């Protein structure tokens, strides 16, 4: 990618004028104190517009999950400022501005698939009938209507992760935070779920912040990719993915797709060559 497109947003993804959905400004995280002090994140800044699909990409230990947890208000940054739709993360959390999907489906084994999806609604005191309507709709969306009354442990890993996505959508939040949701799945299931996720994005118009360590996955899904480098975790570069908005599986075999992967790959090699120090300690 050439440098101008690196900074600016992809034109097609700019929906509202200046309003950013996520603003992360100069965020640093330091764990521990004294000689054991570790800087997990150092001065990270990025903004995400509504309706954008943005991936945080980087090697293990670069703090990408930490960053996601800060946006989700599961962790406080040491310094810096985070806003979601102009609000503090805590406020955004209490107003259910985002849904979360973890690497493990984190379903409740004692609840059926349907009741897992309905849990966030139940906690809000939503009427039973309304819960049922929404869960039916979502289960239909992820293609699990037939399994509504099954228990999570009766489903495959891919199906479980679908339930988890449906649950994250239950409160209809504008933002979805996903922490390596497909990394534990096999290659075939992974590709299928990536397609389904894009379909969900198309039909719901939600914004995605997606953490991954897979370059092809990030390229296939994202409008923009934020590459993080490790020790300390900081933004290495930001790349707009100039691939067609409608993405089919065949895209994975095309030249532009390879090109994009190469561009991102070079980021990591460049970093290693520059420092001559292994990036793991």
């Amino acid at each position, binding site marked *: 990618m050439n440098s101008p497109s690196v900074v600016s947003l992809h034109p097609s993804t700019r929906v509202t004028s200046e309003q950013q959905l996520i603003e992360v400004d100069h965020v640093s995280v330091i764990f521990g104190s004294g000689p054991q002090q570790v800087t997990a994140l150092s001065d990270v800044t990025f903004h995400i517009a509504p309706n954008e699909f943005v991936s945080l990409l980087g090697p293990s230990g670069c703090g990408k999950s930490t960053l996601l947890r800060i946006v*989700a208000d599961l962790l406080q940054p040491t310094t810096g400022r985070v806003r979601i739709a102009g609000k503090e993360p805590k406020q955004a959390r209490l107003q259910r501005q985002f849904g979360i999907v973890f690497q493990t489906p984190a379903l409740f084994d004692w609840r059926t698939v349907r009741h897992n999806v309905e849990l966030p609604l139940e906690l809000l005191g939503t009427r039973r009938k309304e819960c049922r309507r929404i869960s039916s709709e979502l289960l239909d969306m992820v293609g699990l209507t037939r399994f509504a009354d099954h228990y999570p442990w009766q489903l495959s890993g891919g199906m479980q992760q679908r339930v988890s996505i449906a649950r994250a959508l239950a409160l209809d939040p504008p933002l979805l935070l996903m922490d390596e949701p497909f990394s534990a799945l096999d290659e075939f299931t992974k590709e299928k779920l990536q397609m389904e996720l894009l379909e969900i994005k198309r039909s719901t118009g939600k914004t995605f912040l997606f953490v991954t360590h897979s370059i092809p996955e990030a390229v296939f899904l994202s409008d923009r990719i934020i590459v993080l480098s490790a020790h300390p975790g900081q933004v290495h570069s930001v790349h707009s993915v100039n691939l067609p908005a409608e993405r089919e599986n065949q895209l994975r075999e095309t030249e532009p797709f390879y090109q994009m992967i190469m561009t991102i790959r070079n980021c990591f090699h460049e970093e290693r060559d520059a420092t001559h120090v292994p990036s793991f300690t």
Partner: protein
Amino acid sequence: MRPMFLRLLKPGYRAWVMIWIISIFVLWEGLAWMLHLFMSPQQATSRLPYLHVVMDSFFRHWNTLAEQSSVTFGNAAIGFAGGTLLGALLALLMSAAVWIERTLSPYVVSSQMVPVIGLAPIVYGIIHNAEWARIVMAAYVTFFPVIIHTLKGLKSASPQHLELMRAYGTSWRARYIKCLLPSALPGLFSGMKIAAPLAVTSSIVVELMGAPDGLGVLMVSSLYYGSAQAGMFWATIMLSMGIGLISYLFISLAEHWLTPWQPEFRPKGGE
């Protein structure tokens, strides 16, 4: 899938159960017969009576045995229920804050250092009521395993589940009801399974110390008559074993019914 012991009733297992019962019978009778070869009948009987003699006293004195064991079992059950409740509540309290756990756990642990056989006369001396002494002792041996296992269960709630609860801005009450308590149930049941037979035993220990009724009293009195009542003595031992076993099975059934999601209860092929 049903609990293990129910599978024993299935046609495929019945034959094995029969073989098992018959071989125990044969082995026991054989051993007793050998003792009778070398010793006087009295000596041999006081060491190991014939199984058919034990069975004979078991059925002959069935009414007495049933009456007395129901007293023992009743008291043990009340104490067990109380101890379980106390243990579960304490575990909940201890899970609420680390300082509560740190404050309480030394007392909880040291309470278990007192041997039951030493504590029984003390409790009996203080309460002076055979019923209550049995109930208190049964509760006393119950609450410890229940606390330990329930607390472990409460802590077994997955971090992701807790983070989800946090992300939903859940109240602490909803967090307990929707997440922590269901996670703790399997732990509660393992504690109860360990405690149930113990509750019966401790109730019998109190009776040995001089209660007016119960299975323990029958044990002491039949011991007093030596070989003449050896069959009766063994019958009481087997009955107390049986009661302990039944209470264990009863808890297992309840566990199976209330926590069907546990991995070992899942139907096969549900991958």
